[in-house]
């Protein structure tokens, strides 16, 4: 099977720290200093109350909320939403899981994927 190439992350001033931490294997979310909610994708301004937010590490465990497999690609791949434990639901791809095993409710854990420029993207694998 052709190996899927993951494009390099798009780094912005707002999220630069996320990618630096990812390089060290730390998975960060943003938590609001006013309402204390965590959200996804990471923003400097809380989407729930427009308060300021800070980075907070998350263990990266969760369950599959929905999934699909893109079957027509040269390198078919699985992706979907993961509901993080005590956290937001995020889009990601699934690695190291046989397509036939994917199902909603399946436990998954963080697995960093390499991208074309060496940066790490959060992916999920069987938990």
């Amino acid at each position, binding site marked *: 099977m052709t190996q899927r190439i993951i494009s390099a992350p798009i780094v912005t001033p707002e999220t630069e720290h996320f990618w630096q931490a990812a390089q060290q294997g730390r998975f960060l979310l943003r938590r609001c200093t006013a309402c204390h909610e965590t959200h996804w*994708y990471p923003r400097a301004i809380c989407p729930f109350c427009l308060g300021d937010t800070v980075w907070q590490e998350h263990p990266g465990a969760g369950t599959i909320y*929905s*999934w699909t497999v893109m079957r027509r690609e040269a390198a078919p791949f699985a992706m979907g939403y993961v509901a993080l434990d005590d956290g937001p639901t995020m889009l990601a791809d699934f690695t190291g899981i046989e397509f036939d095993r994917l199902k909603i409710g399946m436990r998954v854990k963080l697995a960093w994927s390499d991208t074309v420029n060496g940066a790490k993207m959060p992916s999920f694998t069987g938990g």
Partner: protein
Amino acid sequence: MTIKNRAYIMGAYEHPTRKAPDKSTAQLHAECARGALADAGLTKDDVDGYFCAGDAPGMGPLSMAEYMDLRLRHVDATDIGGSSYLMLVSHAAQAIAAGKCSVALITLAGRPRSEKPRAPNPMQPEAPWEWPYGIATLNAYALCAQRHMYEYGTTSEQLAWIKVAASHHAQHNPHAMLRDVVTVQDVLASPMVADPLHRMDCCVVSDGGGALIVTSPEVARSLKRPRVSVIGAGESVKHTMGGRVDLTYSAARVSGPIAFAEAGVTQADIQYASIYDSFTITVLMQLEDLGFCEKGQGGRFVADGNLISGVGRLPFNTDGGGLCNNHPANRGGITKIIEAVRQLRGEAHPAVQVPNCNLALAHGTGGLLGTRHGSATLILERQS
């Protein structure tokens, strides 16, 4: 202020082409404008308001107004994908009701089969968190279908009935890209492209376009065409809600009730419905969210030909829809309105015409149902 009976759709035109390698996008827009003006019995010089969306080349209304030498006193370039054109009808009606213009031209055109797609903007804030994972239109909608099946027991057979109904209608449309009647078995036998969606759960890709003319009541009365009144309109957007993702419903849950309330009618009154059909799951979720059935019952509602004209309770997309007929510029919004206008005028193909069709609904979804999207609902009434 209400738009009810303050504006009328008096011109509608669907470009017959489905592949246009030898035309420019601006040219297609202008050809559609010419067609809709001729249909209404108006000329270019009557147009004082112009409305277009992201498919318009260049700087939208600026470039197209110059291309067609329109002399305008009102413009609007709302762009929320395929739902834009239903929003633009609503915005045109609002502008007309406010006296900002009296003859509004709305155009859509594009050539996805003949030219490369425009590069998306990497500065959109969600891009870093989605693009590397291969997000696309197809898998974003597949995620909704997967979750709907999990939550409500919806089946691939039920989704297939939506394509079957569209194909029954498309057989009568000489311009439709896919005119063969298909069965549930045909849909299930087509290749799985993004679980749980099969190839036949997906709409066509076509070059082409369409245009509409919306006018004031005074202008409408001066014209010879049947008058199609905009009696209700609603619009909304939905997204990933900061990570509180819920793929089981769409923004139609907001746009639908607004439109029904303004029109003063109920789902049971609707004789014909144009429902955006980028994928079969798009139709199913919108029917639920618009209240044609209870949430989770969409699968049962669409089964057994319930959407086939002359057979079922709710005839839908009698031109064959995006699933079989046309999805110009990857945006089906305007063709939804055009077929509703045909039905209300009694100008649909006789094999699919709803008898005495006086009240119709047109609904569009733009963007990606699985991430962020717009919804727009129009309720249209024939008035003599």
